[in-house]
Protein backbone atom coordinates (compact mmCIF):
# COMPACT_ATOMS: atom_id res chain seq x y z
CA UNK A 1 0.00 0.00 0.00
CA UNK A 2 1.29 3.39 -0.96
CA UNK A 3 1.80 6.11 1.64
CA UNK A 4 0.72 9.44 0.12
CA UNK A 5 0.86 12.89 1.66
CA UNK A 6 0.13 16.32 0.20
CA UNK A 7 1.16 19.04 2.61
CA UNK A 8 2.12 22.70 2.91
CA UNK A 9 4.97 22.24 5.35
CA UNK A 10 8.45 20.87 4.71
CA UNK A 11 9.39 17.24 5.21
CA UNK A 12 12.54 15.67 6.63
CA UNK A 13 13.92 13.40 3.92
CA UNK A 14 16.12 11.43 6.33
CA UNK A 15 13.25 10.75 8.70
CA UNK A 16 10.95 9.79 5.82
CA UNK A 17 13.54 7.36 4.45
CA UNK A 18 14.27 5.86 7.88
CA UNK A 19 10.56 5.23 8.44
CA UNK A 20 9.99 3.96 4.93
CA UNK A 21 12.92 1.53 5.06
CA UNK A 22 11.80 0.25 8.46
CA UNK A 23 8.28 -0.33 7.11
CA UNK A 24 9.45 -2.33 4.08
CA UNK A 25 11.94 -4.55 5.91
CA UNK A 26 12.79 -7.47 3.71
CA UNK A 27 13.24 -5.37 0.58
CA UNK A 28 16.85 -5.05 -0.47
CA UNK A 29 16.52 -2.08 -2.80
CA UNK A 30 15.19 1.41 -2.11
CA UNK A 31 15.15 4.23 -4.67
CA UNK A 32 14.22 7.83 -3.90
CA UNK A 33 13.69 10.89 -6.03
CA UNK A 34 13.74 14.39 -4.59
CA UNK A 35 12.64 17.44 -6.56
CA UNK A 36 14.25 20.71 -5.47
CA UNK A 37 13.42 24.33 -6.25
CA UNK A 38 16.23 25.49 -8.55
CA UNK A 39 17.67 28.91 -7.83
CA UNK A 40 18.00 29.66 -11.57
CA UNK A 41 21.29 31.43 -10.96
CA UNK A 42 19.80 33.58 -8.22
CA UNK A 43 16.93 34.88 -10.37
CA UNK A 44 14.23 32.88 -8.58
CA UNK A 45 12.80 34.29 -5.36
CA UNK A 46 10.10 31.72 -4.72
CA UNK A 47 8.15 28.87 -6.24
CA UNK A 48 4.41 28.83 -5.62
CA UNK A 49 2.68 25.50 -5.98
CA UNK A 50 -1.08 25.30 -6.44
CA UNK A 51 -2.98 22.04 -6.36
CA UNK A 52 -6.51 20.66 -6.52
CA UNK A 53 -7.35 19.33 -3.05
CA UNK A 54 -9.22 16.07 -3.27
CA UNK A 55 -8.30 15.29 -6.84
CA UNK A 56 -4.59 15.45 -6.01
CA UNK A 57 -4.80 12.64 -3.48
CA UNK A 58 -6.97 10.54 -5.82
CA UNK A 59 -4.69 11.05 -8.80
CA UNK A 60 -1.51 10.26 -6.86
CA UNK A 61 -3.13 7.18 -5.30
CA UNK A 62 -4.16 5.93 -8.75
CA UNK A 63 -0.65 6.44 -10.12
CA UNK A 64 0.89 4.64 -7.14
CA UNK A 65 -1.60 1.76 -7.44
CA UNK A 66 -0.65 1.39 -11.11
CA UNK A 67 3.05 1.25 -10.16
CA UNK A 68 2.30 -1.44 -7.57
CA UNK A 69 0.40 -3.39 -10.22
CA UNK A 70 3.22 -3.19 -12.79
CA UNK A 71 6.24 -3.95 -10.61
CA UNK A 72 7.04 -6.21 -7.69
CA UNK A 73 7.26 -3.62 -4.93
CA UNK A 74 7.48 -3.77 -1.17
CA UNK A 75 6.06 -0.26 -0.89
CA UNK A 76 5.97 3.26 -2.20
CA UNK A 77 5.85 6.70 -0.66
CA UNK A 78 4.90 10.05 -2.20
CA UNK A 79 5.16 13.38 -0.36
CA UNK A 80 4.35 16.56 -2.32
CA UNK A 81 4.30 20.09 -0.95
CA UNK A 82 2.11 22.99 -2.02
CA UNK A 83 2.23 26.70 -1.20
CA UNK A 84 5.23 29.01 -1.34
CA UNK A 85 8.74 27.48 -1.38
CA UNK A 86 12.16 29.11 -1.48
CA UNK A 87 15.17 28.24 -3.68
CA UNK A 88 16.82 24.96 -2.69
CA UNK A 89 13.76 23.71 -0.80
CA UNK A 90 12.47 20.22 -1.45
CA UNK A 91 9.26 20.28 -3.47
CA UNK A 92 8.47 16.61 -3.29
CA UNK A 93 9.84 13.11 -2.95
CA UNK A 94 8.97 9.62 -4.01
CA UNK A 95 10.49 6.43 -2.64
CA UNK A 96 10.05 2.88 -3.85
CA UNK A 97 11.22 -0.36 -2.26
CA UNK A 98 11.55 -3.74 -3.94
CA UNK A 99 13.33 -7.05 -3.64
CA UNK A 100 15.31 -6.18 -6.79
CA UNK A 101 16.72 -2.84 -7.83
CA UNK A 102 15.39 -2.84 -11.39
CA UNK A 103 11.81 -2.81 -10.08
CA UNK A 104 12.54 -0.03 -7.59
CA UNK A 105 14.18 2.14 -10.27
CA UNK A 106 11.48 1.58 -12.89
CA UNK A 107 8.65 2.25 -10.45
CA UNK A 108 10.26 5.46 -9.15
CA UNK A 109 10.77 6.78 -12.68
CA UNK A 110 7.20 5.81 -13.63
CA UNK A 111 5.81 7.60 -10.56
CA UNK A 112 7.80 10.74 -11.42
CA UNK A 113 6.74 10.73 -15.07
CA UNK A 114 3.08 10.47 -14.12
CA UNK A 115 3.24 12.90 -11.20
CA UNK A 116 4.78 15.50 -13.53
CA UNK A 117 1.96 15.46 -16.05
CA UNK A 118 -1.06 13.71 -14.51
CA UNK A 119 -1.29 14.94 -10.93
CA UNK A 120 -3.04 18.32 -10.52
CA UNK A 121 -0.16 20.56 -9.42
CA UNK A 122 0.85 23.85 -11.05
CA UNK A 123 4.02 25.79 -10.43
CA UNK A 124 4.42 29.55 -10.58
CA UNK A 125 7.83 31.16 -10.43
CA UNK A 126 8.30 34.43 -8.61
CA UNK A 127 11.44 36.24 -9.77
CA UNK A 128 13.03 39.65 -9.84
CA UNK A 129 11.46 40.22 -13.25
CA UNK A 130 7.95 39.12 -12.32
CA UNK A 131 5.82 36.02 -11.96
CA UNK A 132 5.13 33.30 -14.49
CA UNK A 133 3.38 29.96 -14.55
CA UNK A 134 5.76 27.17 -15.47
CA UNK A 135 4.84 25.73 -18.87
CA UNK A 136 4.49 21.99 -19.29
CA UNK A 137 7.43 20.56 -21.24
CA UNK A 138 6.88 18.43 -24.34
CA UNK A 139 9.60 16.14 -22.98
CA UNK A 140 7.44 15.41 -19.93
CA UNK A 141 4.46 14.45 -22.06
CA UNK A 142 6.72 12.34 -24.30
CA UNK A 143 8.12 10.57 -21.23
CA UNK A 144 4.72 8.95 -20.62
CA UNK A 145 4.77 7.10 -23.93
CA UNK A 146 7.41 4.60 -22.94
CA UNK A 147 5.34 3.02 -20.16
Amino acid sequence: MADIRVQAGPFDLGREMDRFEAAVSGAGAVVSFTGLVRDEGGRLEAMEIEHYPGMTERAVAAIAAEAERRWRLAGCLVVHRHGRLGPGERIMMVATAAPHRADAFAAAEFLMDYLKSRAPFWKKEHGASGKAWVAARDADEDALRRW
Partner: protein
Amino acid sequence: MIDVLYFAWVRERIGVPKERVETEAPTVAALVEELRAREERYAMAFADLAAIRVAVDQELAGFDAPLAGAREVAFFPPMTGG
Protein backbone atom coordinates in the same frame (compact mmCIF):
# COMPACT_ATOMS: atom_id res chain seq x y z
CA MET B 1 -26.31 23.20 -10.61
CA ILE B 2 -22.69 22.25 -10.82
CA ASP B 3 -19.51 23.40 -9.04
CA VAL B 4 -17.00 24.78 -11.53
CA LEU B 5 -13.39 25.09 -10.37
CA TYR B 6 -10.50 26.94 -12.00
CA PHE B 7 -6.78 26.56 -11.31
CA ALA B 8 -3.53 28.37 -12.11
CA TRP B 9 -3.81 30.94 -14.95
CA VAL B 10 -7.35 29.85 -15.78
CA ARG B 11 -8.32 30.86 -12.24
CA GLU B 12 -6.44 34.14 -12.57
CA ARG B 13 -8.17 35.06 -15.84
CA ILE B 14 -11.63 34.19 -14.59
CA GLY B 15 -10.99 35.85 -11.26
CA VAL B 16 -12.49 33.24 -8.93
CA PRO B 17 -11.32 29.78 -7.86
CA LYS B 18 -14.80 28.28 -7.78
CA GLU B 19 -18.41 29.11 -8.56
CA ARG B 20 -21.77 27.36 -8.71
CA VAL B 21 -23.22 27.40 -12.19
CA GLU B 22 -26.86 26.89 -13.17
CA THR B 23 -26.66 24.88 -16.37
CA GLU B 24 -28.35 22.21 -18.44
CA ALA B 25 -25.26 21.73 -20.64
CA PRO B 26 -25.03 18.07 -21.67
CA THR B 27 -21.23 18.10 -22.11
CA VAL B 28 -18.13 19.94 -20.94
CA ALA B 29 -17.87 21.59 -24.37
CA ALA B 30 -21.45 22.89 -24.11
CA LEU B 31 -20.70 24.28 -20.64
CA VAL B 32 -17.64 26.07 -22.01
CA GLU B 33 -19.81 27.66 -24.74
CA GLU B 34 -22.26 28.90 -22.13
CA LEU B 35 -19.47 30.38 -20.01
CA ARG B 36 -17.80 32.02 -23.02
CA ALA B 37 -21.05 33.73 -23.87
CA ARG B 38 -21.35 35.20 -20.37
CA GLU B 39 -18.47 37.66 -20.12
CA GLU B 40 -15.22 38.67 -21.74
CA ARG B 41 -13.09 37.16 -18.95
CA TYR B 42 -14.51 33.69 -19.73
CA ALA B 43 -13.96 34.19 -23.46
CA MET B 44 -10.34 35.09 -22.71
CA ALA B 45 -9.76 32.18 -20.37
CA PHE B 46 -11.24 29.70 -22.87
CA ALA B 47 -9.70 31.30 -25.99
CA ASP B 48 -7.40 28.33 -26.67
CA LEU B 49 -8.94 25.03 -25.58
CA ALA B 50 -5.81 23.13 -26.63
CA ALA B 51 -4.11 24.78 -23.63
CA ILE B 52 -6.78 23.66 -21.17
CA ARG B 53 -7.33 20.36 -19.39
CA VAL B 54 -10.58 19.20 -17.80
CA ALA B 55 -11.54 17.07 -14.82
CA VAL B 56 -15.10 15.88 -14.17
CA ASP B 57 -15.67 14.81 -10.56
CA GLN B 58 -11.91 14.86 -10.01
CA GLU B 59 -11.07 12.52 -12.90
CA LEU B 60 -9.33 13.75 -16.06
CA ALA B 61 -11.83 13.94 -18.93
CA GLY B 62 -12.21 15.30 -22.44
CA PHE B 63 -14.33 18.25 -23.63
CA ASP B 64 -16.79 15.72 -25.00
CA ALA B 65 -17.40 14.21 -21.54
CA PRO B 66 -21.09 14.15 -20.50
CA LEU B 67 -22.12 16.23 -17.48
CA ALA B 68 -25.23 14.24 -16.53
CA GLY B 69 -24.93 13.54 -12.81
CA ALA B 70 -21.64 15.38 -12.44
CA ARG B 71 -21.17 17.44 -9.28
CA GLU B 72 -17.89 19.16 -10.10
CA VAL B 73 -16.03 20.26 -13.24
CA ALA B 74 -12.54 21.76 -13.18
CA PHE B 75 -10.56 23.66 -15.83
CA PHE B 76 -6.79 24.14 -15.64
CA PRO B 77 -3.61 24.27 -17.73
CA PRO B 78 -1.42 21.20 -18.32
CA MET B 79 -0.10 20.01 -14.98
CA THR B 80 3.44 20.70 -13.81
CA GLY B 81 3.95 18.64 -10.67
CA GLY B 82 6.96 16.78 -9.44
